[in-house]
């Protein structure tokens, strides 16, 4: 398919409202926040049910024998999808498990420093905090990041932090850098290839938090070459919740053990991660039908449409609200999620917080997009998806206008 044939916000092709029937949404509910918890099509749900029924017919046959080739097949397909060796992949429950798996396995020593960005996901930064609390003289180096910020400026900030640390000459070393591929709140696509190379050039290991990556942007680990990488399939790939992919480069595998040690401890990376104890694996198995669903349209088509919709939708909302998007003209920093500034006059308004705004949106309008403070503004993050169209963003813009107008009037 040439680029001109790919679906866009103006020419949705197979996408838009006609996709709603493939999903599980109730009539009057529009999902604008796919980015938080994802959702999956009906065919994926049907597959989950089928796997559960299959398992119950013969639990021993399944758990001792038949489960493993299916899990193996998933890793094979995903290895092709992300361009890496299947032996470097493990299927885990979610990104936080993936982060904890690596961080709680790495043999930190006194003087180790862990570099994070201030826009890193909160559970990730809390995990780093836990590592610092439980290991002697391991500290965090946090790079403050405030958008709008160009890729170039972001890289400069990180390099400045690396240089400043080097100049300390206090015997400490930056052992590991954790960087988002696409941050959560605010949502911005980072220059992840350059970040990996930059951190490597300073001798640091790199863990790429790609929680939002797979299914939202093309993922090529052969090109990116991180030390560790985690991505949630249940976010943008349409699998069921509780299905994520962990990549651990072969050279590090001997160090890495699951957060729950299994009976196959010390029998090799693939074996250690092959079975996580008794649980319902149907979420992980749903990755297969998710990939199948997407194959109907092709990754290029899906990504083209959702990206175009996020960009155009963000512009439309900003126009209605009389504001701007966080990433401005940098459309490359937007994948499927766009952050739109909210024209709240008084940022210290008691309801200017995620929780209160959530209640207003849910109770009065039956929609939700997370609102958050970043820099000098209040923003809301909107997720484009194949089941949305441009007029949904227009409607959302009008809703937010009403909400903010009300708040402005009441201050």
């Amino acid at each position, binding site marked *: 398919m040439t680029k001109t044939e790919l679906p866009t916000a103006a020419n949705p092709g197979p996408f838009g409202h006609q996709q709603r029937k493939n999903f599980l949404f109730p009539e009057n509910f529009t999902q604008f926040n796919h980015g938080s918890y994802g959702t999956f099509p009906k065919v994926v749900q049907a597959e989950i049910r089928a796997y559960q029924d299959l398992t119950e017919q013969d639990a021993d046959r399944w758990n001792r024998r038949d489960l493993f080739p299916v899990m193996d097949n998933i890793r094979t397909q995903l290895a092709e999808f992300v361009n890496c060796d299947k032996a470097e992949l493990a299927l885990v429950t979610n990104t936080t498990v993936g982060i904890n798996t690596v961080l709680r396995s790495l043999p930190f020593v006194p003087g180790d420093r862990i570099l994070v960005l201030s826009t890193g996901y909160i559970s990730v930064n809390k995990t780093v905090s836990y590592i610092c609390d439980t290991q002697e003289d391991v500290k965090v180096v946090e790079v403050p990041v405030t958008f709008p910020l160009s890729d170039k400026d972001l890289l400069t900030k990180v390099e400045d932090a690396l240089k400043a640390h080097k100049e300390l000459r206090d015997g400490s070393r930056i052992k590991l850098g954790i960087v988002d591929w696409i941050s959560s709140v605010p949502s911005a696509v980072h220059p992840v290839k350059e970040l990996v190379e930059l951190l490597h050039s300073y001798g640091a290991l790199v863990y790429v938090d790609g929680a939002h990556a797979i299914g939202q942007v093309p993922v090529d680990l052969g090109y990116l070459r991180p030390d560790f990488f985690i991505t949630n399939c249940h976010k943008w790939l349409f699998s069921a919740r509780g299905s994520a992919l962990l990549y651990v480069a072969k050279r590090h595998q001997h160090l890495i053990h699951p957060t729950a040690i299994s009976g196959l401890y010390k029998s090799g990376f693939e074996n250690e991660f092959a079975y996580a*104890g008794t649980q319902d694996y149907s979420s992980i198995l749903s990755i297969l039908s998710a990939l199948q669903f997407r194959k109907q349209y092709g990754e290029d088509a899906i990504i083209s449409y959702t990206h175009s919709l996020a960009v155009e939708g963000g512009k439309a909302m900003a126009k209605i609200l009389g504001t701007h998007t966080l990433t401005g003209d940098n459309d490359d920093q937007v994948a499927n999620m766009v952050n739109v500034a909210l024209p709240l006059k008084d940022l210290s308004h008691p309801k200017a917080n995620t929780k209160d705004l959530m209640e207003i949106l849910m109770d009065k309008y039956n929609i939700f997009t997370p609102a958050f403070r970043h820099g000098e503004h209040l923003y809301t993050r909107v997720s484009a998806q194949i089941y949305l169209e441009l007029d949904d963003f227009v409607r959302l813009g009008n809703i937010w206008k009403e909400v903010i107008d009300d708040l402005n009037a009441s201050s």
Partner: protein
Amino acid sequence: MSSLTAHSQGSAATHDTLSSALPTPAQPGPFGHKQRKNFFMPEGKTEFNHGSYGTFTRSVQENMMKWHNRVEENPDRWTRLDLKPALIKVRTQLAEFMNCDKDELALVQNTTIGVNTILRSLDFIPGDRILQLSTLYDAVDKTTRYICDTHKDVEIIEVPIVMPLTDHEIVFQVEKMIQDHLAKKDGSRIRLAMIDWISSVPAVLHPIKALVDMLKSYGILVFVDAAHVIGQVPIDLTYLNPDFLITNCHKWLYSVRGSAVLFVPKRFQSSIHPTSIQVAYKTGGFENEFSWSGTLDYSTILSIEGALEFRKQYGEDAIIHYCHRLAVEGGAKMAEILGTNVLTPHEHQVGNMVNVRLPIKNINDPKLQTPDYLIRLLLDKYNLFTPSFKHGGYFWTRVSAQIYLELSDFEHLGRVWKEVIDELNAENA
């Protein structure tokens, strides 16, 4: 429940009239094959190994799907507002079931996670020793070894346990090991004991109260691995008073796989953190740290509600009594057919699982050194499975009684195993 003719057991003077009205293999009442339709069993397939992976009823699956679908109606409202109260409700129900405070319970996915949660949170220091029995579950043993690998001078003290042993002998052997250790006076200390309430392979119901009390009298922390307990034997945490306890609801309680409950008394909570650190670390407290494990499918945990509802129809006493009697009588019947015996000398050492000796002539038969041969043979030729294992110089198989089984099933199983073993023995002749 149909009315049952009261049996008195002659010399068993302690049987009261209530227990004699409970279902038995001779008088299954609401149990036996008529229960099959409540589960997912295909025609021609009998589940003899409930103990490994559990199973759940159709009604429990409906309950799980109800929760599952509710999320899709509005994932944000569900996850941000409704999930935590739903989990609190389950904890409240379980707290009543297990006689403890709901705030001392955390819902996790399985025992291995529960064990890792505690062991990887405790701050072991050089000289600490972890006491465990040789019959400890494999993954738990690997976890204690991981702790030793990742901490300086932390070692395992293993108490060899070879059945048959009486309750008294088990407690004695553990206590002797402790006393021997104390006599060494080498500066080390037994910090923690990992003790099975009902071990897996072999399946033995341990004298847990006596063990907990004895261990605590030596100042040792006690972590009870009760993976198999809830739904198999009554559980009273106030009475037992362990330091930590983990139990799988998806084994004997009939909830969906991926639902377990961890008991952590308040005095330890500030130092126990999940295996996956989350947003609530250091700011939310124990309850909040364990209320959110990141994005996953919580409907398996919430299916505990459906499981408890299903069981309430019959009552815990009825279910436990039937399964226990069936395990005892079924085990005896199988041993009779095989010309062997069961592992445990006393009936009270059996919950719902019984270990029957296999009359294998050559214990070193290469076919038996890995589980694959028997797994394949049993599943493919006979369409059933019970795990087999070496213990004390013999081979045994472990059979799980359940409400969907009857005595005739055990007879059938005995004949299948006799055929399997006769063939193996013939090949070795």
